[in-house]
């Protein structure tokens, strides 16, 4: 599919809380969007990134200039809709070409009522964020002055202390039935009959990406997704073989209900956490988290597996990190970021819990770390007999 559309030329402004202003062209829906201004260095996968719930309340800058080239398709979704608050690009492609595409990014933004800005010097913006740290900002295609926008950006609350999980977690529990993508047959759709005999994994939804659920299913599990507020008792009542702690947006330290739930589950069931789930597991184990200056967002971060000493090219999307110095005894640091030596993974073997800060489900990005789903499978398989023995 391929299509070109006529360009609509109206101005837009990006105002940062520190008073920096960028002028550009309006893209997507007309209006205003506010959030934390962050940047992602992936060169492909804008559809997956925009629909990733971890980007909730963020104005997303792509460092790669051309965005929109391959349009939007029905398959590359990581949630049911765009989750990023707004889009910032250098060169928005108003036409697209790819055999799977169904519409243009512009059409999708409008459909989803998402505001964006194009045509600004995004490298200058990224350098500014790198030097001064992530900060709040507003994109507007309305008739307002830059000064007014700056004043309003200043007034926005910081991401620190913000519980965004409540905004993106599922309202109701549901069963997941989709497997992984195949280039010829698309996604594998499983039936209840396929799934009934499988072991159950309860996925605590802090803002989960679909591909995690697909990979858990592909690992041979039946997956039930539950709201972030689900209690440990409720979870254990489902008699799961393992619990998955999902990725999600915002500050982990304020997701106290999640931390409490995980604490109550420790030692009772194997757990695997990704991203926010990793940070929540860290909190539950007694470690703390801090906000990174401008976060890690991209698909090229080298992480060393400290056990095997091999290097994985990983997908990252986080603004907070677990503080290595606060890791309690008994918690093994399993993965390390080679760019800045931050914590990328931890494990408590005897509790059957482990987690990674990065995104082994990729989507978008390299698939180097998908072995972790298999690791989870092994942990689950060895847990039941081990637990019986302990009892």
């Amino acid at each position, binding site marked *: 599919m391929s299509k070109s559309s006529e360009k609509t030329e109206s101005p837009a402004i990006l105002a940062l809380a520190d008073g920096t202003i960028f002028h550009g062209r309006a893209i997507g829906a007309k209006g205003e969007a506010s959030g934390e201004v962050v940047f992602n260095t992936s060169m*492909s996968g804008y559809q997956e990134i925009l629909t990733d719930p971890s980007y909730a309340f963020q104005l997303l800058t792509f460092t790669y200039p051309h965005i929109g080239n391959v349009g939007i398709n029905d398959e590359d979704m990581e949630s049911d809709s765009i989750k990023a608050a707004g889009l910032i690009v250098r060169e928005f*492609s108003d036409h697209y070409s790819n055999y799977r595409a169904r519409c243009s990014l512009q059409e999708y933004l409008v459909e989803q009522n998402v505001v964006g800005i194009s045509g600004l010097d995004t490298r200058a913006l990224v350098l500014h964020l790198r030097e001064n740290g992530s900060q709040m900002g507003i994109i507007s295609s309305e008739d307002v002055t830059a000064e007014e926008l700056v004043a309003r950006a200043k007034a926005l609350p910081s991401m620190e202390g913000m519980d965004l999980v409540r905004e993106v977690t599922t309202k109701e529990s549901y069963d997941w039935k989709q497997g992984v993508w195949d*280039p010829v047959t698309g996604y594998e759709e499983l039936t209840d009959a396929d799934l009934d005999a499988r072991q159950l994994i309860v996925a605590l939804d802090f803002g989960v990406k679909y591909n995690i659920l697909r990979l858990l299913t592909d690992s041979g599990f039946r997956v039930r997704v539950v709201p972030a507020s689900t209690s440990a008792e409720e979870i254990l009542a489902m008699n799961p073989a393992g619990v998955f702690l999902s990725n999600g947006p915002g500050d982990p330290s304020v997701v106290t209900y999640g931390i409490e739930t995980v604490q109550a589950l420790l030692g009772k069931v194997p757990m695997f956490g990704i991203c926010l789930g990793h940070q929540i597991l860290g909190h539950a184990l007694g470690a703390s988290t801090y906000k990174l200056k401008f976060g890690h967002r991209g698909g090229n971060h080298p992480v060393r597996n400290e056990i095997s000493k091999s*290097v994985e090219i990983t997908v990252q999307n986080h603004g907070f990190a677990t503080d290595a110095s606060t890791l309690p005894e008994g918690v093994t640091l399993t993965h390390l970021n080679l760019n800045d030596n931050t914590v990328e993974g931890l494990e408590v073997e005897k509790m059957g819990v482990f987690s990674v800060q990065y995104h082994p489900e990729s989507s978008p990005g390299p698939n180097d770390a998908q072995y972790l789903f298999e690791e989870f499978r092994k942990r689950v398989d060895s847990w039941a007999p081990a637990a019986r023995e302990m009892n």
Partner: protein
Amino acid sequence: MPKRSDIKSILVIGSGPIVIGQACEFDYSGTQAVKALKEEGYRVVLVNSNPATIMTDPNLADRTYIEPITCDYVAGVIERERPDALLPTIGGQTALNVTIELEEAGVLDKFNVELIGASVEAIKTAEDRQRFKVVASKVGLESARSRICTTMEHAREAIKEIGYPFIIRPSRTLGGAGGGVVEREEDVEDKVNWGFECSPNHELLVEESLIGWKEMELEVMRDTKDNAVIICGIENIDPMGLHTGDSITVAPIQTLTDKEYQRLRDSSLRLMKEIGVDTGGSNVQFAIDPETGRQIVIEMNPRVSRSSALASKATGFPIAKIAAKLAVGYTLDELPNDITRETPASFEPSIDYVVVKIPRFTFEKFEGADTTLGTQMKSVGEAMAIGRTFTEALQKACRSLETDRTGLLGGKETKQSLEELCESISRLNPDRMYQIARCLELGMSVEDLHERTHYDLWFLREMEKVVRLESNLAGTELGAITRATLLEAKKMGSSDLRLGELLGGELLGNADENSVRAKRHELGIVPAFKVVDTCAAEFASSTPYMYSTYEETSDAEPSKKKKIIILGGGPNRIGQGLEFDYCCVHAAYSLNDAGFETIMVNCNPETVSTDYDTSDRLYFEPLTLEDVLEIVRREDPSGVIVQYGGQTPLRLAQSLKAAGVPIIGTSPDSIDLTEDRKLFSALVDKIGLKQSESGTATNEAEAVEVASRIGFPLMVRPSFVLGGRAMAIIHTTEELRGYIKESVEVSFDRPVLLDRFLSNAIEVDVDAVCDGNEVIVAGVVEHIERAGIHSGDSSFMLPSQTLSEEVIAEIQDAARSLAMECKVRGLMNVQFAVHKDGVFVIEVNPRASRSVPFVSKVTGVAWAKVAARVMTGETLEEIHALGLYGDILKFRDYPAASGQIPYVAIKESVFPFVKFQGVDTVLGPEMRSTGEVMGIDRDAAGAFIRAQVATGMELPTSGAIFFSLRDEDKDSALALAKKMAELGFEIVATRGTAAFLAENGLESRVINKVREGSPHIVDELLAGKIDIVVNTPEGTGPFLDSRTIRSTSTQLSLPLFTTIAAASSAVEGIAQVIENRAKEDQAKENRPLEVCSIQEYLSLI
């Protein structure tokens, strides 16, 4: 794992001469690798026959063998040097092939040499198409349906199964030689046979055609711990069907979703592991069906390549350097990212710009060559450009090519109708993209063009944006243009020159480049300069590798240091290539020694000059007035060097000077003086030197008049050319009229030059350096072919073997007077003809010449480095006193100094004729060689043999030699025919030549000319009955017979000599080999060849 301590010395094999498909990207990768290994403390032994390379500089490797890259010679080096390990992956296909030969000959085992980087097994698996297919399918990758064939019969069966169109891919050839698409049954016979001919093992593949599919390449690196990263994905804008070296490409990949890209990535990593490339870089090529996404793996190169050089320049990640370090045991996470210095090399570059590469063709040099492109590479160079958007990068690349294009549109107005254009674009040809753009301009839809060309719609729509913008601008008054409109055009990459073509000027007619620039500056529109940092600004970078774009802010602010800008040579082409890049790199090195900040400007991704390591700051920019002036404006240098990059920067010299740019070295006025025939003639007369009678003409009538005054034969050429473009030797008035009408544009501004042609003169090239007070002659290089063959094509030697000391002294004096009179500051090249009537000045070029690297290697003085410092005001004496660049003052008395050189070096040229079927191979005043090799030995005969072998030509020591001679050569050929008969060769000749030989007492076997009927000479050639061909053609006309003889010989790789001088050298060489053999007893004959490093040779003077 840290580096290995069990190996101490490493042999590195280079790629030899520049040929189509293997160019100076291997000097770039080789130089990086040698430096990297030295840095780790290894003893590095290098073999490379190409003297124009930086990697063969005597101070780079510990031992440098400028010897032929053949199994015998490399075995000689191995026996002598006993390296612990051999790194075969940085010298292209040449190095891989010779490594396999060494292994098969048992040399590696015998001397216990370990292969590092890739095993023979891995190389063979990647190279052998059938094995490769098996391995690929083992890791789940689809290949194109294909069958390997060794006979015509096999091929016919395969064709039945696969159907039309299909592709022929001969095994083990460079740049896809002999490959092609076959669409119809009637072409099968010819094309399949040709494919068999081209393959050294007479094997080819008949393969399913994937024409029209997307083509993608991934550059992969892997270490001993199985850590692997993708450095860059490259998308070919030209779909499948065109050799990737001839394709216009873009990085990163533009038209794949992440899911599709990750499949390619996963496939590449699995493949590299399965093939067994344990460490280093590889390139994997894929085809993707645009309708279904089906992915097919095409091939994998288990070594650094042209694409890896491009990927390195496109991302800032030094693939060859890292590959060398991985080969000695490091892992990616142990090595730092050179650009950020803080983060490790185990990452995948993220880029925040777009890179476009466009190949450079030189079909104008090969009359009669088929300009249809296909799976066999025909381009001789490439330009790369960086922009923040695709259109910006694309248009910058278009103007970087120096083909007079001012952008995607413009410069060269095509007068073709839409209908004619449709015809043109249906054929793969070098101008296809511009023709497509023109179709868009004429209103053809992108959908229609997509149908016809399979260009992806995304690219076509981006091109359409440029077309629309420029159409809207056309006719607007420059004075009335708004800032927003002009800025939009600049952001889309439109050059000032192009805008000048589009916009109306103050008076009638168009605006020009200067007025557009003035207006642009008045409106405050200037480019920003961004840094290539491997990480899209995520981390701070410490390496100022920059490109321009029209945005708000710049990175890497200029310093306040004293700085010099060096303008490079742009894309490689025939006549301007590696030799000029060598000079630019030397300028950067020596000016750095002198304490300057050095700034390089160039747009050729294959080169050492565009390595961010070479200079302090690198601008990867087109070498046009606009782009250079913006850099000068930003940097405010104390000097700009235009002498080193060949014609490219010289063409800008006057305009730069007019814009107030401080050009150092010889002034642009002096450069012009030497180009202006009349002024120059007056100058030569004034200092009392001889020159052949000459004249200039601005039209046909004038030319005929000049000819009648001077007489024939005449040498004619247009002014301001390099590499002998459109030069010719003319024998009659008729020919002269034809030449003026058809070959050149003659105008008042561009007169044609006519000289008396000095028959049978010895041509001499002199390179000299002048500091304003003193001139030192660096080398008096004697050509082997007689005057009339372009100096870039003829073989030449140093020191001279036939000129007397008096003549050399006379030449030295003449060169000195010329340098002083022309006010040269820096390098100067003079061509002389030593004729029976005396020493004649042919021409003076006050700039770096093609022979500078050769002369520097042979004399042990880095003349280009010396001259660069001279340009900044230092004297030759002062530079000599530094002791950094060799014994400069020794050459004050050149005849004495050259007399002390106890060895002889011969440069031989390498030609691309095998790629251009049907092109006449006879040499003339138009340069057509792509590269050079050097043979060095105790005497000229030995050096000649080595040079021949290095070009890939083994001279036979027995068999038959065929003569077909023009009348004037018959006398001089007699002696050598007799000599060959004495050496035991059978003499075969055409009727006329045979009769002449018989009259002079030499019997020969008579053979029919082609037109005399079978069995004729071409039959004999094809039957393998002839071993050497000496064919000197009559006049300049296309004599079908001799032309077929020459092209057949070329295709069969037979030694072919089209001048008596070259044939004589060959005969002497053959005689010496036979004599040496006779001297040596049986035991000694199995001994490896004697080899000697350049460092040892230089220690003898």
